[in-house]
């Protein structure tokens, strides 16, 4: 019998938010189409390190395993990405896994991204409707504009773009590309745009779009291929126009 082929993982672990990180190495049996989440599941079934030491199963967050929910974002070989969609065949070994430290670490690879959901409140990330009851039929929409909205609406709040952005972190209060660009989405809607000024004004405040340094890292890592920089640029123009308007309207 030939020797079982294995995949080598080096995982940065951390027992609690304030404790010191450490690494543990694991060998996981190889199989075709194995992805990083599936490999972590194998470690759950046999939580033993490469050196044969029994340990606790690695903690991480995942749900859909189809790259739609955004939960399993982590840093894999130095790059922020979805673990479920990272096939071990496509990344060099040993595979380094680390938590996305732009966010507070909860445990091991699990992080706290609540700040992103808070930012969605700030940019008023919803359409103001009177209620879920019957009102009017919604207006027809230009199918091309709708297609743009559809692209942006794929954002799954995974946080890859925040992890990759040099301006998100303790040195700055930038809310990051994802929540910022969501403002553009709601401003596209036929009556979402009634609140356009509110959203643009919210982006003039501290941590808004002026904190974007245009490093263009976000667009490189977005797992949904959202043209983040294009919409950031567009928003920047809208915000500037709004700022001038605010001056003249005073």
């Amino acid at each position, binding site marked *: 019998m030939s020797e079982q082929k294995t995949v080598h993982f080096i995982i940065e672990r951390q027992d609690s938010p304030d404790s010191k990180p450490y690494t543990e190495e694991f060998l996981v049996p190889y199989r075709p189409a194995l992805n990083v989440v599936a490999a972590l599941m194998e470690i759950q079934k046999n939580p033993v390190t490469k050196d044969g030491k029994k340990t606790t199963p690695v903690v991480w967050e995942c*749900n859909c395993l189809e*790259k739609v929910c*955004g939960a399993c974002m982590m840093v894999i070989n130095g790059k922020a990405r979805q673990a479920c969609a990272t096939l071990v065949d496509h990344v060099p070994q040993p595979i380094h896994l680390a938590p996305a430290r732009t966010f507070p670490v909860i445990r091991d690879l699990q992080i706290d991204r609540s700040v992103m*959901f808070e930012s969605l409140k700030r940019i008023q990330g919803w*359409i103001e409707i009177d209620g879920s009851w019957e009102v009017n039929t919604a207006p*027809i929409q230009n199918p091309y504009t*709708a297609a743009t909205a559809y692209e942006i*609406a*794929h954002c799954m709040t995974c946080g890859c773009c925040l992890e990759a952005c040099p301006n998100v972190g303790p040195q700055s209060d930038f809310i990051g590309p994802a929540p910022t660009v969501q403002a553009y989405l709601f401003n596209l809607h036929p009556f979402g745009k009634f609140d356009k000024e509110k959203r643009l004004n919210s982006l003039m405040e501290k941590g808004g779009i002026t904190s974007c340094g245009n490093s263009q890292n976000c667009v490189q890592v977005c797992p949904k291929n959202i043209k983040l920089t294009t919409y950031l640029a567009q928003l920047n123009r809208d915000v500037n126009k709004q700022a001038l308007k605010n001056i003249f309207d005073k």
Partner: protein
Amino acid sequence: MSKKNIIVVGGGLSGLMATIKICEAGGEVKLFSYCPVKRSHSLCAQGGINACMNTKGQNDTTWEHFDDTVYGGDFLADQTAVKGMCETAPKLIKMFDRMGVPFTRTAEGALDLRNFGGQKNKRTVFAGSTTGQQLLYALDEQVRKWEVKGKVNKYEFWEFIKIIKNDKKVCRGIVAQNMNSMEIEAFRADAVILATGGPGVIFGRCTASTICNGSAVSAVYQQGAEIGNSEFIQIHPTAIPGSDKNRLMSEACRGEGGRIWTYKDGKPWYFLETMYPAYGNLVPRDIAARAIYDVCVNQGLGINGENRVYLDLSHIPAEYLERKLGGILEMYSEFVGDDPRKVPMQIYPSVHYSMGGIWVDTKHNTSIPALLASGECDYQYHGANRLGANSLLSAAYSGTISGPEAIRWSESDDIGDELTDEQLAAAKQECVDEFENIINMNGKENAHKLHHELGDLMNRYCTIVRVNKELDFCMGELKKILARWSDIGVNDKGHWANQEAMFVRQLRNMILYAMVICKAARMRDESRGAHYKPEFPNRDDEKFLKTTIASYDPETHEPKITYREFDHSLIKPRPRRYDVAKGGK
């Protein structure tokens, strides 16, 4: 305590819809979820949501939608409930449109419609191939607005453990656990809505998210809630087989012209088109799944002798595919490596959805007063087989019923007294003790390996083909797995984000729920919708035009199965065939 204080467990489409309705009625919601609600499993729904919009010149009617749904469900769904859902569907679409869902549009900017299985008319509204994601996000956004207004308190990363009843046996609260700090707390409410989704993970590999384990449903079942029609498990015909999960390939592929085939005598054989000329590739899921199973397992005609057949889109222009199905084609490329625009995809059926679930009346009340259930975790609307694109509809619609009904409970004198401090403390202590016992388990079994065995067993015996002898065997094995659960060893003894210990608790619930599915399947000696027994190949309306009711027996840990009449007064049951046109009114 102020009135109208509702707990909603689960933040998918149904839980969020209920939350919005409660807030609009002046109530306040504590919303519990395993995850940020924006990551709930509803977002995995791809193909669309059915509603009679009648904008394709086909004279579509809500009655036709109603009839298709009842017929597709092999006449086992409560017809008054289904009729209400189909009549409300177009209004829900208009609501979602106003909320900003980026539906795919026609050249003139109207909502586009596509074909789906088991329906002759174009009736499926969609947002590319990520409709569930877009609908969920719209409700997530509206709930965020209510959160800002202080009417919704989210308890994300909290796990529901059980309900608490008052002296009158009315559900007046829950116990839940913070999944990071491990702190266990008891909460008061006027009424509780469970919207906790399906039990797919009981089958191990399935199309569901890892959080869809049926644990909450099992917990309330063990506390006296009845489960209805649990044997009806939908097997989706077209999924990408995987060792960690089977990834869904939307029925929209077939709706947009995809063809299923395999080689026979050296030539492509479009077997659905041959077997079912009236509907062809657009037969409902149970029919398509059985046909693929038959072709692969009985006839040995799977691709290279394996359990796979082709789902072929390669004859459709790439630009059209990109616009209508882009998201999922990208997913196929990513996980498989082939480009479905150029080569046929390879697919096989997979466990996908549970038609059964907590028994509810047409207002979504369970058999426990002031405990409601809506969404996939309830048993309503789909009978013995669900039509594609009816799940997003039933999830959203049921939330519009359960939310207001919870408000009605909160204003009623029937709910009795709120829970006393002593009752809260006692319920909490029970859960704390149970959790500490789990942490201290030092047996030989690994919980995740045991779960793997559970999934293999359920996949083997409780899916497409069911044989009584084998179901008896399966039940025996499930009892052994339940016994082995007590011999689990927990590696992680810590009290911070201990996912392993929480999984052990969920696993026991899953095993008990698996027994419900198995036993209910064993008892129903007929074939209907997704439930197929070669020994009893025909539908038996005489004996089984009834809802299966399972209630928990604490002595044996097994379900007691009984049958209950239901409302099938509007459309008289008729034979269900897809080789010829459906007929009916």
